[in-house]
């Protein structure tokens, strides 16, 4: 079992040392931010170090267009904190984003010129409005088009010998913990991963806890996203406090409470893409987007899956699902997960299906034998 080892040093002191190390070893440094609490702290610490050394660093934000107004305000706050040492990489370029709320508009094409009148807000001439790379644009999957991760990939490829700072913390999830400790990326540094062209990602806040982040924000009187205050007022649990995207399959539930939190954003979103009103009403419905309860017209998840597959309205996406499901077990457990993918239009397989024998039936067999 992996053990945590505690040292006589607090996480802030350690983080500052990590920043010093990165600044000593890299000429180019780019900090990725999202508008959330972690990346606000990540950027603030980097900017302090940059100011101390009178060096410029890049602050990178990929603008998905359909985001909270508060996210934009928070990003603007971070970008304007120390403009003298900030290279502004606020990208407002067209790319595709999954829209789980509608089959018709299954992809939102952010900042698409054709839809200019419907944009959530105007683009800002201070920001980057065209691709930053000169190489031929790389696209991982032509069928899906130029997507969210492709922008990151191509943006990264336009740099070399660069440190990309990411606000990943290992106490958020085991996956994140594994990402951090798996292999050293740069020299013997475990809190880093190797990227192409001698670029490296660094996670200087990897050992910070939830409370460490808030303590830093409070002590340095930093502004933070108002969504956290909203969560506080709603009495939400600690693990539910996340500032996320509004439409992709893992985060579209944010739409459910959007009218309450930012009514203006909700109104604009209604005009911008299909399916928002329906998602707002049913995002937390156990029979609809949650796919937890079987609709009463069906007596098994297998039958529900067959129905969804048969009536799936987008042929090219339907083909992806048929191909994927072909080698799966045919039981209720797997079929429910397949239904979830179909309902959420998860052709990208972001909710992977655990292809196993139905655990419920396995347990029934066990009880049947011993009782």
């Amino acid at each position, binding site marked *: 079992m992996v053990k945590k080892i505690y040292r006589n040093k607090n996480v802030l002191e350690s983080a500052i040392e990590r920043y010093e190390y990165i600044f000593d070893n890299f000429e180019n440094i780019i900090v990725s931010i999202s508008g959330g609490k972690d990346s606000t702290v990540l950027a603030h610490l980097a900017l302090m170090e940059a100011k101390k050394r009178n060096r410029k660093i890049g602050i990178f934000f990929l603008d998905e267009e359909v985001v909270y107004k508060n996210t934009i305000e928070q990003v603007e706050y971070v970008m304007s904190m120390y403009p003298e040492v900030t290279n502004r990489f606020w990208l407002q370029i067209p790319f595709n984003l999954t829209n789980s709320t509608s089959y018709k508009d299954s992809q939102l094409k952010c900042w698409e010129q054709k839809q200019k009148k419907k944009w959530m807000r105007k683009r800002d001439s201070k920001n980057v409005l065209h691709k930053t790379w000169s190489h031929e644009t790389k696209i991982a999957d032509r069928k899906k088009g130029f997507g969210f991760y492709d922008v990151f990939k191509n943006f990264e490829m336009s740099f070399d010998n660069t440190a990309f700072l990411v606000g990943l913390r290992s106490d958020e999830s085991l996956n994140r913990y594994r990402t951090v400790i798996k292999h050293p990326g740069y020299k013997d540094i475990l809190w880093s991963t190797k990227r192409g062209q001698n670029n490296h990602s660094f996670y200087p806040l990897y050992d910070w806890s939830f409370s460490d982040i808030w303590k830093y924000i409070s002590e340095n009187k930093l502004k933070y996203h108002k969504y956290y205050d909203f969560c506080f007022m709603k009495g939400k649990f600690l*693990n539910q406090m996340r500032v996320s995207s509004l439409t992709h399959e893992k985060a579209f539930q944010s739409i459910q409470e959007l009218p309450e939190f930012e009514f203006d954003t909700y109104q604009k979103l209604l005009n911008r893409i299909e399916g928002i009103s329906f998602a707002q009403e049913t995002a937390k419905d156990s029979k609809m987007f949650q796919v937890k309860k079987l609709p009463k017209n069906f007596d098994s998840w297998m039958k529900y899956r067959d129905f969804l597959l048969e009536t799936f309205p987008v042929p090219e996406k339907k083909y992806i699902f048929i191909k994927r499901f072909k080698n799966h077990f045919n039981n209720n457990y797997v079929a429910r997960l397949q239904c979830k993918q179909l309902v959420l239009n998860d052709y990208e397989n972001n909710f992977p299906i655990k292809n196993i024998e139905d655990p419920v039936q396995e347990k029934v067999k066990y009880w049947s034998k011993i*009782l």
Partner: protein
Amino acid sequence: MSANRGFVYIGDHKKLDIINKYIQENDIEKCYVFGDHLKLQCEQYKFSDTDMYKYYYKLLQEIDGASLIIINELMRTQNRYDLKYNCVRKYCLNTKHVLVFSYFPIRKAKEDVMILYDFIQDNPFHKEAYSDAVFNNFVLGDCVLDINKKDVEFGPDVLEKYETEKQKAIKAVNKKPDIIPMRLLKFSQKHKINFDPMDKIKPNMNIMVSNLKVDQYYYSELLNFKKELENGKEDIQKQKRS
């Protein structure tokens, strides 16, 4: 080994007397109870509320060195890494005064006691192994589980009905297959009433075990629990001395 910050009381104790004495002897200014309700004039939080955001920061701000935290019968899962336990553990770190009460120190296995053990340790992240634990601050009271078993035998008509009930229970499974033994136990209890009224689960149990498989299953579970309980108590005694 981490340092201790309070006491864990296992078994039967006069909780209110212990608490009041502790308050007087340690200049306690405020008390907080987590878990089952106690007849005390102080803030009390149910197990389900312990990780709520609206309480979490409030409690972290309020609880200080002059506060007493009382954790009352909070053994709800076997998961030592449960978020709710970690939140309570975090509250405990704000004071050196923690009293933990739990009649049984286990839920199923003797290692479960480490959940109680963690509450009085200084390091919020380090989870010591059961084999390394030193139970010096544990106070063992009466914690017995006497089982008075009475064997009863059902005739072939009941056994036949049992089979039918089993098939019905299997058919009725939707998401939770564990309803099968529970439903069959209910069936068994219904028929055992003809022999003698049953006593509910409590430290001194009078139980009837029939020739139905479900009874045998639950009886073996009960024996396992008793065995684990005895082993756990023995380990606590042993580790106290060393």
